[in-house]
C-alpha cells in the first residue's frame, strides 16, 4: 500500500499474530487424533525417533495434512485478495465466480478420464491433475468474462454470471463423478465440498510449487494494485499499463485458486472472506496479500481441525465447515450490494 500511515504497524501485526495462531493450530492438528501423541512423541519423531506407528501417523498422515491445508489456504487467500482488488468488489472471489468449482471439474475430468476409480497415481496425479485444474479454472474464468461482457465488465454483473457458472460447474462435477463411477465417498467429497481427508505428500507438492512461484509474482505485481484503481490514463501516467497488469494478476489469481483446488478441492468461503477479514483487521483500503495468505492458511487448518475433532467419531470435510461459515456471509454481501445497486 502506498503512503505513510500509522496503520503500517497494525498491518504488520496482523500477519504476525495470525502466524502465531497458525503455529498453535498446526501443533494441535499434529497432536490430536485417534493415536494419542504427546509433545514429546512429536519432537522424538521429528528428530528421527519414535516407533513405527507413531512415525507413520505423524509423518505420513497428520503432518502433510496440516501443511497441505496451510498451503491451500494461503493460495486461496491470496487469490481472493487479488480478484477482489482487481474487480473492486468484495464478492469477486474465485469460489463465488465459479473458478474454484471449475478447477475441481477439470481435476475430476482427469480422474474419470484416467479410468481409475476415485484416484490417480504417478505423473497423472502430480502434473496432470494440477494442470487439468488450471485448465478448468482458466476456461471457467474465460467463460464468465465472455458472458458478463457488455462493452466492458461491470462488477455486479460479473458476480451474478459467476454465481450461475459456479452452479453449473458444481453440477458438472457431480455428473463426472457419477459417470466415472467414483465409488469412494471420501474421494468424491474432496471434489464436491473440498476436504483434507487422506491428502498426502504427493497432493501437497503442486500447491507448494505454485505458491513458491506465484506468491512472489503476486507481491511484485500487487505493488501496482493501488494504481489499478485509477482511470486508464492516470495509471499509464504513473507507469502502469492497466489492462496488461490486470490480466496478469488475474491469471496469477486463477492459477493460485486452481493449484489450491487440485490439492484440497473447492473449499469455499476462504478466498471470499479472508481478504475482507485481513483488510478490516489491518485497517487498510485494499485486501493485504500477505495478511490474506496467513489468515487463509489459519482458516483452512483450523476448519480441518474442527471438522476432525468436534463431532466425536464422525469426521466432517473441512469444506463443510467453511461452507457453513460462508453461506450467511455470502448472503449478507449479496443483499448489501443489491441495495447499493438499487439506490
Amino acid at each position, binding site marked *: 500500500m502506498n503512503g505513510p500511515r500509522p496503520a503500517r504497524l497494525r498491518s504488520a501485526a496482523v500477519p504476525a499474530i495470525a502466524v502465531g495462531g497458525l503455529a498453535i493450530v498446526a501443533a494441535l492438528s499434529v497432536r490430536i487424533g485417534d493415536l494419542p501423541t504427546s509433545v514429546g512423541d512429536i519432537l522424538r519423531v521429528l528428530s528421527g525417533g519414535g516407533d513405527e506407528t507413531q512415525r507413520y501417523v505423524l509423518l505420513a498422515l497428520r503432518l502433510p495434512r496440516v501443511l497441505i491445508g496451510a498451503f491451500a489456504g494461503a493460495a486461496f487467500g491470496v487469490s481472493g485478495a487479488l480478484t477482489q482488488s482487481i474487480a473492486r468488489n468484495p464478492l469477486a472471489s474465485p469460489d463465488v465466480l465459479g473458478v474454484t468449482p471449475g478447477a475441481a471439474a477439470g481435476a475430476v475430468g482427469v480422474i474419470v478420464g484416467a479410468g481409475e476409480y476415485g484416484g490417480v497415481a504417478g505423473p497423472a496425479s502430480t502434473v496432470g491433475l494440477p494442470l487439468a485444474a488450471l485448465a478448468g479454472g482458466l476456461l471457467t474464468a474465460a467463460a464468465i468474462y465472455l458472458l458478463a461482457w457488455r462493452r466492458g465488465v461491470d462488477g455486479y454483473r460479473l458476480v451474478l454470471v459467476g454465481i450461475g457458472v459456479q452452479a453449473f460447474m458444481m453440477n458438472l462435477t457431480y455428473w463426472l463423478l457419477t459417470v466415472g463411477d467414483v465409488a469412494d465417498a471420501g474421494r468424491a467429497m474432496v471434489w464436491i465440498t473440498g476436504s483434507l481427508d487422506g491428502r498426502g505428500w504427493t497432493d501437497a507438492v503442486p500447491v507448494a510449487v505454485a505458491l513458491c512461484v506465484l506468491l512472489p509474482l503476486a507481491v511484485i505485481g500487487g505493488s*501496482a494494485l493501488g494504481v489499478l484503481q485509477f482511470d486508464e*490514463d492516470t495509471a499509464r501516467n504513473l507507469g502502469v499499463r492497466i489492462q496488461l497488469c490486470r490480466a496478469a494478476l488475474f491469471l496469477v489469481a486463477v492459477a493460485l485458486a486452481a493449484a489450491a483446488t487440485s490439492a484440497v478441492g473447492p473449499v469455499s468461503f476462504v478466498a471470499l472472506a479472508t481478504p475482507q477479514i485481513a483488510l478490516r483487521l489491518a485497517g487498510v483500503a485494499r485486501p493485504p496479500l500477505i495478511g490474506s495468505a496467513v489468515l487463509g492458511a489459519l482458516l483452512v487448518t483450523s476448519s480441518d481441525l474442527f471438522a476432525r475433532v468436534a463431532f466425536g467419531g464422525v469426521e466432517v470435510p473441512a469444506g463443510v465447515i467453511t461452507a457453513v461459515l460462508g453461506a450467511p456471509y455470502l448472503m449478507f454481501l449479496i443483499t448489501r450490494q443489491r441495495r447499493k445497486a438499487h439506490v
Partner: protein
Amino acid sequence: MKRPRLRAESLHVGYGETPVIEGLDLEVLDDAVTAVIGPNGSGKSTLLRAMGRLLAPRRGQVLLDGKRIDRMPTREVATLLGVLPQTPRAPDGLTVAELVAHGRHPHQAWYRRWSTDDDESVAAALRMTGMTDLAGRVLDQLSGGQRQRAWISMALAQGTELLLLDEPTTYLDLAHQVEVLELVRRLRTDLGRTVVMVLHDLNLAARYADRMVVLGDGSVVAQGAPHEVLTEDLLREVFDLEARVISDPVAGTPLVVPVSPRTRAH
C-alpha cells in the same frame, strides 16, 4: 543547439477510422511554459495524449530525449514526464494525501515501497499547491478548484521535469483559474520545469505562456511568443472570430476582445 527534450515528428494520430492529427511536427521548448490553443476539435487533447504516450501514433513518432516514447518502458517515462488528463478519476474515499502519495509510484519498487524522499516530495507538492491543510480530506468532498489542485499536487509529487496538463483550468471560476496558472508559472520560474498545457482561454494563455502553439485541423498553424502569434488575422482565419487584439493593461500581453463571429458568407 541542443535538441529539445520532447518533440513530435510527422505525427499521425486518430481514434478508430477518424484521423485527428495528420503530419504534425512540434518541438517543445525546454524550461518554458507552452500553451496549446485552437478551436474545438482541432486536436489539442489528442496531441497532448500522444505526446504523453497515452495514445499510440499511427505514423510518425514522439521523441523523449531522442528515444521513441512509445518504445520506452512506461514506468521509465513516468519518472521523466507527467501527464494530467482532462478528467482523471480516483477511487472512492481517497484522501488528498493518499492521492498525492500515488504520484510517487514510479519511483518505488515492490521491495521499496516508501522512503523519506517520498515523504518530502509529497509534503513539498502539497505546500506548493496550498493543499497541506486539506491533506486529510476525502477528494469527493472538495470543491472543483481544490480537487484540481490536489491532482496537480500528485503530478508535482511525481517529480518529473516535463509536465503535460490537459485543460488544468476546466470547471474553475476565474479566480481559481488564475490561481492554477500562477502555480504553473512558478513551476517554471522556481523549479525550472517544462510545461505544456492545453487552454481554452486565449487571454489567460497569452498571459501565462512563454510560447503558444496554435492548432487548426490537426496541424500546427502558428507558434511563437504570444504577441507574435495572437493576431487579428490569426483569430479570423483559425478561430473564425472577428476581434480586436489590444495590450493587456496589467501584463502587457495580447488581449483578445471579440467583435463578432465572422459571417460564413466571407
